[in-house]
């Protein structure tokens, strides 16, 4: 089961879901940000025992989403891979191969520092630094003053919810301003940064796998 919510951004109808991704029905694009593949392997290479099985969870979820939406294109908004090359890349290579009818687009993030040849060896993967597509400007880091509707990731947005007599809850969230749409981090092994929401901004939090529109 995928819990969803319909929103409008930049005049386009979009679906956000509890697996922290966005689907654009018109263009059949699935947007994912900050997967941080390979982070676990880094830890494990340094002798820190966090089970690798978690990495597979990233792919299971991605596969579940692809099955559900049947997208033409999977757009990854940066930080696909966590820094230095390691064997986890082969899992991604394999994954792209399994879904060879889908094209994968990567907007490079600050953690995507592996050699270009690794990208080139995957035939259905295209890499951009930023990408203007269908009226949206896709970047990894949020633009400071977006003039075109900007869809991005990078900051792993989260929100703290607090009210009288109840404890504060922290939850990852989608964060929308008039001209900017920031996605939460998709990766299993990622944290979230607490934001202070401003007036007029929209926040959609993911709490216990449900979507909650906070503003």
């Amino acid at each position: 089961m995928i819990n969803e919510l319909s929103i409008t951004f930049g005049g386009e109808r979009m679906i956000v879901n509890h697996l922290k991704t966005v689907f654009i029905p018109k263009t059949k694009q699935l947007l994912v940000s900050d997967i941080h593949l390979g982070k676990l392997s880094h830890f494990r290479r340094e002798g820190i025992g966090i089970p690798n099985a978690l990495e597979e969870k990233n792919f299971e979820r991605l596969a579940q989403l692809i099955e559900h939406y049947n997208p033409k294109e999977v757009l990854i908004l940066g930080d696909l891979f966590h820094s230095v090359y390691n064997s986890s890349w082969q899992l991604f290579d394999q994954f792209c191969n399994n879904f060879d009818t889908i094209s994968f687009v990567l907007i490079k993030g600050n953690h995507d520092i592996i050699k270009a040849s690794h990208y080139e060896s995957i035939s259905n993967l295209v890499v951009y630094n930023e990408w203007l597509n269908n009226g949206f400007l896709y970047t990894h880091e949020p633009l400071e003053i977006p003039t075109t509707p900007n869809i991005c990731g990078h900051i792993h947005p989260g929100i703290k919810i607090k009210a009288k007599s109840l404890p504060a809850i922290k939850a990852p969230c989608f964060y929308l301003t008039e001209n900017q749409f920031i996605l939460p981090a998709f990766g299993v092994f990622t944290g979230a940064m607490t934001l202070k929401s401003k007036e007029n901004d929209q926040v959609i939090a993911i709490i216990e796998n449900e979507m909650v529109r906070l503003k």
Partner: protein
Amino acid sequence: MADKKLTKVQREKNAISYVEHWFEEKGWKAHAFQKKTWKHYLKGNEGIVNAPTGSGKTYSLGFAMLIEYLSSTKPQNHGLQMIWITPLRALSIEIKQSLERIIQDFDIPWQVAVRNGDTSTSDRQKQRRAAPQILITTPESLHLLLASKGYTNYFKHLKLFVVDEWHELIGSKRGVQIELGLSRLRTICPKLRTWGISATIGNLEEAMQVLLGHAETRKQVLIKSNIKKKVKVIPILPSESEKLPWGGHLGIKLAKQILPILEKSTSTLIFTNTRSQAEIWYSHLLDIQPDLAGIIAMHHGSIAKETRAWVEQALHEGMLKAVVCTSSLDLGVDFRPVETVVQIGSPKGIARFMQRAGRSNHSPGKQSEIYFLPTNALELIECSALQDSINQNQMEARLPYQLSLDVLTQYLITLGVSEGFDPKQTYEEIQKTYAYKALTLEEFMDLVQFIVTGGEALSGYDEYKKLVKSKEGKYVLENRRQAMRHRLGIGTIVSDVVLQVKFQKGGMIGSIEEYFVSKLKRGDTFQFAGRLLEFIRIKDLQVQVKLSNKKEGVVPSWQGSRMPLSSQMSSVLRKKITQLANNEFKGKEDQFLMPLFELQRERSKIPTENELLIEKLKTRDGYHVFIYPFEGRLVHEGLATLLAHRIGQIKPLSFSLSYNDYGFELYSDQEIPIDEAINQGVLHDEDLFNDMVNSINSGELAKRKFRDIAAISGLVFKGYPGKNIKTKHIQASSSLIFDVLEDNNPNNPLIRQAYDEVFQFELEEIRLRTFFNRLKTMDIVIKQLDKYSPLSFPIMVERIRGSLSTEKLIDRIKRLQEIND
């Protein structure tokens, strides 16, 4: 060298008489407990010496070693003979001087060396090349030695292993480190005898078992000195017209009454319970008595090491009239000029109070006096309770840690870094320790497996590498970078993320928790180390500040510095309140309490020890239920959560919980069906474990415990103070690791340990169960209040509130939104 023709007994007798002669020359006399220790040591026994500080305990074991040397026909001058463990680096120098004095006076060609975190690398290398005969060190440094190649050779001549201040170590994971270190040394040094030195604690027999192991290969003796310290507690009462507040915890209203006490003694130590309280008291004393400027100082754990050292030195030299301090001065070298001790607020435990009292007046035979300044009215009851306990010499027990898998993980890797380990042999060794006697071979092998594979079956993709099997069948750690990181991480004291506070122009002031700094904005003023500082910025893990010209600033709150009332104290307290309930008002303090307790009686009831009082109150804010088990704040936290959970089974509710050492409050915006709940018997200990697990379902407590466990077992690496090691790509918060492990690998041994520690230490499961047992013979009295009672008021104002909800989280959020709308 002793005369070979004499028998062993005669040689020892001669040696003892030399030593006694030495005492006479100094004008001293050996204590009975010292002589007893020598005899038992010479017989090959092991044990614990129970003697107060300043009674010559160093000589009890120092001379044991010396007498053996003097009476030997083949005196050993080669290799490490004796290790002296001290929990506090500051004490090393004093011990070194004492031991050096005796080896010099008896002309023994031995070296005494200190090795701890302050020892320079070149000195450490020197110690490794040519081992000193006596090494004074800490638990952490002992493990660092075990992490270096060739340690078997280094330790093989060792005869005596002394653990000083064992009572300080036993209740911590540092104690487990000692147990593990000894388990290895007992195999490689067959002649080894272990001795502990401990102050009085409630479980001395157990403490001995923990130190010596339960295998009992040698005879174990507990040697008690007959030196008793007398302590008198003097309450500081407000003048007739003034009233003590019902709640709060600062006590500065009574500050003026301290001034004459400071006046009449050379030096005074003023103990507070928290660092923020110390900051507030320090500045308040200066406000009401500006003359004190320059002759009073402050000492707590966040103040720069250099400043603390200066304060200690100045105390020694009698230059300071008073020092406001926290537990940072509980232990350590004696300060002769200190004549008086003042305790601000409840000391929470008898042993701690005694220890603080003992910091004054070192002349033997004379009684120590300690002033007790209550910060609220109820604390006055504790004052007479304390005096009763001291007279009866009732001390708290210090419970040893058991089955700490994080410390064991660290230890196994330590052995892997140096000479490797054979699992079968290591298991046999640790089985003999108290901490791991209940660990099954299967659990042990699971842990080894976890370290070897990183928690799962190795796949082709996996590059995980930690311990590998050597040709000799031992597990070793070959990766040099990992080995280096492990050495830097050895230890079980995990500090919070702290930032150094520095003046912009240079000059270290101290360190402060990141948590506090994160709330500051540029230009904010805060009070720290007795100064008003203006926050400028954070740069490279340093907080840059300048002196502020403002008059006031916020005081940082330091987390985790609040202790619960000990079970000993709680029990005495309940007896005391029973007396008051029976109208037995004795002494000045009780007279003072009378009006307050009369009001309690008028508005509610004074509970005796055979009654559990429950108060109900409806206010504008909502519905309150107060319950008073008098079992200390941790037990109350557990009880409150449990009760909230069980009441929630009757009616889904969101609660806000608050607690102090006397009782707890459940508060909700909807009516709480407490009568119904009590009638249905929610106060029982059946299914305690399950209900507790369910009520702390957020795992928040376990997550907090996991922070230390992750650091000790090497799952998180925070770098090393002052060393800029690049580890950014392997940094993750322990809470993130906890979440992923718990979701995906709930059987992970370290996650289970986190939950176990929550039960044992955070919820004090044993005390909780004891309470339920006690409850079986108690009457439950429910009172409806119109106004807050004196007992309920302080709980209501407690700032730290926990909450619990039996509504589904998502429903709660939705409701919460409605509230906001």
